[in-house]
């Protein structure tokens, strides 16, 4: 065979080769997916489950925390109201005054400044001492348990410091030196100055406050003309707010309204409890509740009274025992409902302390691992599905490459497919997860869930994060199979099965 002579070789002109638009790749991926609906929907299901799991974990954690925060602030409010009633009838203790000064509660400091008659400058100075003393107490509390027991005995650090004098100070110094511990606040002279100067000042201030508060309370009581403060609050007689504020208490109208409700509730609960001491009534109610008569008390009444017909039944017995006119069945139901709500609040706070989670979106470390694992499993599942999708389409891919598809385009096609599946699965999973979390939280907390405020934005951002993570992981899972597809030789198209 003779070699033909060559002309000069021409370079190929490839300038009009275009890169396919993203839109076209997207449409191709879509039509390919709709053809393989079943396979795609399995992948979508995997993705939606993983996303649902993540969203559920995140939003449940958020709901839980918001609910517990809500419950906590409600309980704190109630506790404060209880304290306020006490404060209206008895002067604050040293510890209460110390706490208020160290924490710097503005309304208390205003009251104390007024009652002590020592002036604003002196009050501010005392506040500084109180704060420093609390720091010292905290430092003492941070000592190792054994050392703390040796130095402080049974007392809390705060009690210990408040009952301190210069003599004890040198004993503490010797003990801490012996134990090789640093003095609270860094050095002993500072602590010494605080104890020698600050403590007497604090005590003097507290004494002055207590005297002032006492006379304020006396003045208030005189204006009640023999009624107790609880009774006065319950009736919320006209001019009560002015009188209470007039003697120096800083209470808002809302506080006073809450106090009035609390006072009437306390009164009513007390009268119910009094009625329950009647043996006949407790026997009858014990039969009604199917419990032992000795266990009949306000707790068991509120447990039983869950609707108005039950309230009527209980009300009938109480009326027979000579209940005051304000103890209507309606009122019994109200008291019971409020009580059950309080029990629930307390119970919710029990969970709070045992599962105080930190980390992203309030997930505990264990749950973080669970989320990560679920996504790993999901990535493997999606990668497997995509791999099958690639292998069953060898001929199609090779044909496309014969027709001029670039490697990058083929790759894009498969990554797109996975991302679309990730998006669809993710959106389904989002709603599934949020619904699941809400149902779970509703079962766990019931009506308390309504107290979970400010949770919409965090949940929305948790949803967004989960969606992005879902789509990104689907894309990552598709990269391997897509690369395999892109590297496929166009010769495969010639193969005949």
């Amino acid at each position, binding site marked *: 065979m003779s070699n033909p002579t060559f002309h000069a070789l021409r370079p190929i002109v490839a300038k009009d080769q275009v890169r396919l638009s993203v839109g076209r790749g997207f449409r191709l991926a879509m039509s390919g997916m*709709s053809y393989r609906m079943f396979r795609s929907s399995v992948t979508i299901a995997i993705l939606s489950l993983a996303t649902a799991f993540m969203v559920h974990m995140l939003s449940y954690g958020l709901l839980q925390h918001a609910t517990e925060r809500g419950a906590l602030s409600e309980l704190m409010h109630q506790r404060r109201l209880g304290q306020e009633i006490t404060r209206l009838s008895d002067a604050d203790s040293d510890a209460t005054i110390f706490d208020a000064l160290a924490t710097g509660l503005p309304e208390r400091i205003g009251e104390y400044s007024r009652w002590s008659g020592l002036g604003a400058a002196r009050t501010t100075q005392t506040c500084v001492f109180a704060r420093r003393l609390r720091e010292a107490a905290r430092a003492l509390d941070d000592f190792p348990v054994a050392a703390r027991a040796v130095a402080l005995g049974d007392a809390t650090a705060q009690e210990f410091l408040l009952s301190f004098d210069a003599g004890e100070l040198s004993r503490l110094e010797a003990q801490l030196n012996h134990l090789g511990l640093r003095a609270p606040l860094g050095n002993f002279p500072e602590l010494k100055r605080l104890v020698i100067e600050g403590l007497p000042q604090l005590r003097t201030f507290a004494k002055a406050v207590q005297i002032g508060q006492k006379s304020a309370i006396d003045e208030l009581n005189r204006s009640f003309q023999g009624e107790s403060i609880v009774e006065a609050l319950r009736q919320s007689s006209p001019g009560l707010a002015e009188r209470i504020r007039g003697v120096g208490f800083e209470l808002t109208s809302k506080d006073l309204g809450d106090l009035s409700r609390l006072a009437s509730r306390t009164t009513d609960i007390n009268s119910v409890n009094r009625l329950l001491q009647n043996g006949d009534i407790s026997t009858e109610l014990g039969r009604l509740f199917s419990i032992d008569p000795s266990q009949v008390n306000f707790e068991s009444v509120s447990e039983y009274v869950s609707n108005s017909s039950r309230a009527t039944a209980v009300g009938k017995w109480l009326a027979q025992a000579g209940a005051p006119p304000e103890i209507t069945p309606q009122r019994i139901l109200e008291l019971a409902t409020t009580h059950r709500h309080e029990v629930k609040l307390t119970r919710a706070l029990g969970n709070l302390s045992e599962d105080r989670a930190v980390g992203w979106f309030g997930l505990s470390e264990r749950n973080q691992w669970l989320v990560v694992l679920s996504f790993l499993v999901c990535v493997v599942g999606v990668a497997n599905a995509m791999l099958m999708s690639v292998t069953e389409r060898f*001929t*199609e891919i090779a*044909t*496309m490459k014969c027709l*001029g598809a670039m490697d990058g385009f083929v790759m894009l096609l498969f990554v797109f497919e996975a991302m679309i599946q990730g998006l669809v699965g993710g959106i389904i999973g989002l709603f599934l997860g949020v619904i699941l979390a809400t149902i779970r939280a509703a079962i766990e907390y019931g009506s308390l869930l309504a107290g979970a405020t400010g949770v919409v934005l965090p949940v929305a951002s948790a949803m967004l994060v989960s969606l992005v993570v879902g789509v990104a992981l689907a894309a990552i899972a598709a990269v391997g199979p897509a690369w395999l597809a892109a590297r496929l030789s166009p010769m495969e198209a010639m193969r005949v099965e």
Partner: protein
Amino acid sequence: MTSKDSADRPIIIRTLGLEKHYGIGDATTYALRGVDSSIARGEFIAVMGPSGSGKSTYFNMIGGLDSATRGRILIDEVDVAQLSAVELAFLRCQKIGYIFQSYNLIRYMTALENVTVPMAFAGVSPEEARRRGMALLALVGLEVRWAHRPIEMSGGQQQRVAIARSLCNNPKILLADEPTANLDLDTGQEILEILRRINQERKMTIVCSTHDHRLLKICDRILWIRDGRIERVASREDIHITVGSIGGEA
């Protein structure tokens, strides 16, 4: 090896000492053992040979789908071995149309969508691609079935769609890999007729590997490949003289 009537036409496919080995050392398989061939523009070439002869390898090489171990392939005076990935994609897209034995239509696309896929790769606008696609479907007589998917069409119809697809970027070369092997006699005849018409009307170079002896009647030349070498090259006239009466088809 140039035939009388292709002597003055420009050569569009040329192979020089083309070799393809698989494996190394003692285990080396020789698919091609030095193939020199040249195909002129506008020729209709039939490539024949028993299975395992290296026919498929030769076919993949001149289609720019596989690289040579030794030797050169020149397609339209361009050395395929020198091309980058982008240029190879361009070559496959614009210069060569492929027709496959099993049609290889994309299952989830309609006939028209299948025809327009290579135009999308070539950057033709969707409107223009639709217009050209419909014209090509008309050429193969399937314009009324443009919205049908491959599964709704017979083998012959699918192959006609595939032919329309191969023509859509107006390539210089049409490579058909046993286009009639999966079809019955009459349908195969139709396909061959379409290929002949394309060759004659569009002056398109067609290289067709086949076992179908009817092709011998319409092609310009026949390449016989055996054991990785070109065993014989004959023009149609010679075939008619030598084997014209054997197949009982003349």
